[in-house]
């Protein structure tokens, strides 16, 4: 596929350069008063090319959707993500409509009104009514988008303590993530980088009773259907906790605790059954099989087949291995989550080892 696209692009490029050169050679035949100023012939050619360019843009848009529509993120795995996706869809429809229309007007006018020595431009300097119309229409449309957006934003960012969210700390350092659960009391112990010592890598205060039963893990497990409030910390530079499948992101800032909350609604198992994910995983595995063939031919180990997992990615440049700073997220049923958590040692257990 890639090779085909490459060849296609190169051939098309070659043809276009050749054709353009021909057009310009032909257009050049009759020099007007000064050959570096556009002649009527140039105006004509360029006018037609403008329509060609309009077609190119539309075709490019359609082609990219057709080829790569499947790389986009699947349906949201969180409750608020549905709202975001909905707003995104509405915004996309609006901008595609406006884009298609204005690009058409722009290029069509460039074509229709291409210069001609016998034509006369219309002296048309202003029209308050028109200005008013295209001021008020964006105002109304944007007002709608702003109001919808602000309600969504406030809903997402305001965490209601009455929901009794699960408290989880996301701890960022160059170049890995850790998660800390509040334990049975669902309360995180106080922590500071100045308390980092030996196995206590998150600097949890050993004297704080809330911290005794905290559990520190390197794989994030979340129960489906319960609101999770993430408290984010970073020990060195800025990081950003980005969970694209849950439409969630927040920076981790050294010196302060930031937060973000969401409710996971789709378990990892369910997401693996999602049509889009099934298709995507199949595509990725096809690519990996191809690579494996090359690898085994070179005497190296073949790649393992890929299965889908939710990911927490670092999305703020944080150093050399920024591209490789991620953590697996598993969304489980309540029972599986509890079973998993029970197996994890508490901080006290870890420290006394």
């Amino acid at each position, binding site marked *: 596929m890639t090779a085909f696209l*490459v060849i296609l*692009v190169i051939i098309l*490029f070659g043809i*276009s350069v050749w054709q353009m050169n021909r057009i*310009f050679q032909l257009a050049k035949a009759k020099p007007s008063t*000064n*050959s*570096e*100023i*556009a002649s009527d012939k140039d105006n004509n*050619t360029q*006018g037609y090319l403008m329509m060609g*360019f309009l077609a*190119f843009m539309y075709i490019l*848009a359609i082609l990219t959707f057709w080829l790569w529509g499947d790389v986009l*993120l699947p349906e949201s795995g969180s409750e608020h993500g549905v709202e975001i996706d909905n707003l*995104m869809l509405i915004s*996309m429809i609006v*901008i595609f409509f406006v*884009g298609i229309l204005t690009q058409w007007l722009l*290029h069509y*006018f*460039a074509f229709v*009104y*291409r*210069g001609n020595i016998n034509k*006369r431009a219309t*002296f048309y300097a202003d029209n308050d009514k*028109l*200005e008013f119309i*295209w001021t008020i229409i964006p105002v109304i449309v*944007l007002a709608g988008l*702003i109001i919808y*957006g*602000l309600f969504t*934003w406030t809903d997402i960012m305001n965490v209601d303590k009455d929901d009794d969210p699960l408290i989880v700390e996301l701890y960022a350092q*160059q170049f890995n993530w850790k998660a800390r659960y509040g334990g049975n009391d669902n309360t995180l112990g106080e922590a500071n980088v*100045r308390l*980092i010592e030996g196995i206590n890598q998150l*600097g949890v205060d050993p004297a704080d009773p809330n911290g005794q039963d905290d559990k520190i893990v390197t794989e994030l497990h979340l129960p489906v259907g319960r609101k999770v409030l993430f408290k984010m910390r970073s*020990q*060195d530079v*800025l990081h950003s906790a980005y969970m*694209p*499948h849950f439409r969630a*992101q927040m*920076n981790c*800032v*050294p*010196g*302060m605790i930031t937060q973000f909350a969401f409710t996971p609604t789709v378990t990892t198992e369910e997401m693996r059954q999602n049509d889009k994910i099934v298709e995507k995983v199949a595509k*990725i595995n096809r690519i*990996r099989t191809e690579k494996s063939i090359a690898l085994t031919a070179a005497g190296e180990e073949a*790649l393992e087949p*890929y299965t*889908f997992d939710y990911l927490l990615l670092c*999305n703020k440049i944080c*150093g050399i291995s*920024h591209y*490789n700073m991620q953590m697996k997220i598993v969304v489980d049923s309540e029972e599986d989550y509890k079973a998993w958590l029970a197996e994890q040692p508490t901080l006290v257990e870890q420290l006394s080892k």
Partner: protein
Amino acid sequence: MSAHAQVHGVEDHHDDDHGHHHKETFVTKYIFSQDHKMISKQYLITGLFMGTIGILMSLLFRLQLAWPDHKFTIFEVFLGKWAPDGVMDPSIYLALVTIHGTIMVFFVLTAGLSGTFSNLLIPLQIGARDMASGFLNMVSYWLFFLSSVVMLFSLFVEAGPASAGWTIYPPLSALPQAIPGSGAGMTLWLTSIAIFIASSLLGSLNYIVTVINLRTKGMSMTRLPLTIWAFFVTAIIGVVSFPVLFSAALMLIMDRSFGTSFFLSDIYIAGEVLHHQGGSPVLFEHLFWFLGHPEVYIVILPAMGIVSEVMATNSRKPIFGYRAMVASILAIAFLSTIVWGHHMFISGMNPFLGSVFTFTTLLIAIPSAVKAFNWITTLWKGNLQMNPAMLFSIAFVSTFITGGLTGIILGDSALDINVHDTYFVVAHFHLVMGISALYGLLAGVYHWFPKMFQGRMMNKNLGYIHFWVTAIGAYGIFFPMHFVGMAGLPRRYYTNTNFPYFDDLADINVVMTIFAIITISVQVIFLYNFFHSIFYGKRGPKNPWNSTTLEWTAEMKHVHGNWDGPIPHVYRWSYDYSKLNKDETDYVIPGQDFIPQNVPLQDNEDEMDH
């Protein structure tokens, strides 16, 4: 016919006073020149040089992104020890994107665009003999030159150039332990930008004073060409916002070298706790974006001005809605200073602030929409002369619309959560400010080349080839990039194949890189055309595009003071294209579809209030 007589009267009148023709040596004429025309050429050529470097850097990292497993000899050639056996080092990848961003935003699109055309056009279009202070203008250029040299020098330091991203967020940029580029490389980066800011401020103050004080008789503010309005307002935004970046840079230097804690707190790195306490990286983000956001308007407004002017001239029509255009420039300038927070929705700042910045950000779409519609209406019923400058202007409107529309998504805090810092952002700002501003720059170069180089013109056909390949290539690179972003791929990743989830983006990356290679290659044609035409370009007529503005009444051969005779007076606005006489039988000046600004009101025309 009296208009003709008047035009010629002005042109033929040779003043005997040659006080402004002093003897010039090579040094005073070409190096330490105080003449705004020479300074503008210096800015342009320095800008093009920096641009070439910046764009070649993008070629290197595009190759890396498309074929992460491939070994490229070209990496070894250019990057030396940073690419042993042709495999790019992750730290130099970050350095390349950092310096690419810095060079393109500051050195090419701020200095190269605004520096070039403000210098060239402000005195010529307002009818002034030179800038208010030729000396400060010269200092401004040489500070810019110095900062360019420092920036280029930083590429060669032992631990590598700055690599914390062009936004240089601390603590990454403050701590050499965090990334090697934050050692000497970052020190030089900060030095370079501090000098750059000094240069920019001197330039901006000069532009403001010149526009306010040195307009010729009759050149009221409402008769100014939109280019001048744009340069004037750009300079004001620069003066308001650049000092804030300067203070941020200064505080960062203090944190780095003198042990202060403006931006640092609670840091444990490389096995030890740092003493810093109480600072906030979010404060730096606020200070940085207080410049950083107006900066994108500093980049785009001059391009808008150039496009308005080129489009009106080549449409043979007045710009539609002159007053609305001026008002929208002012509105954009004002709003640009209160929207910086939209870069920080998820930085940890108070979510309520996020709501406020969403509101102001989406407001800015309104004046932008007004401008886009006005440009489109300017084309309507025009008599479009498809010169290369015109093509780039039309393409500017196209990319500005496409890139601007995705801004509606990014400006919405709720939607920003999931596309923040992904390739969606990269695609957005490259189209709306990168490519658009470059189109403005190129339109300006093609249009005013004869003015810069004493009547010589650039080759039209090479211009057409340059334009079409660039226009197709730019969309070819950046349209698919939106998909990469919406797939959830974060930016500034050295490779996205280190874990399997993004493996299916490989072919999009290849397609983008191929378009990038093509687009970058075709710029060679432009550079050839540019430099060849300086020496061998055909000389065109004095006013090749039949333009109304004053610069075309000045002498073709460059003289100190621009006009050999007295400065022309102005009697009308700058957009009297295709204006008809009272009976609507012919143009006001028969057989000529434009009336230069220095032609007095004729008996057969109505005075219009624009």
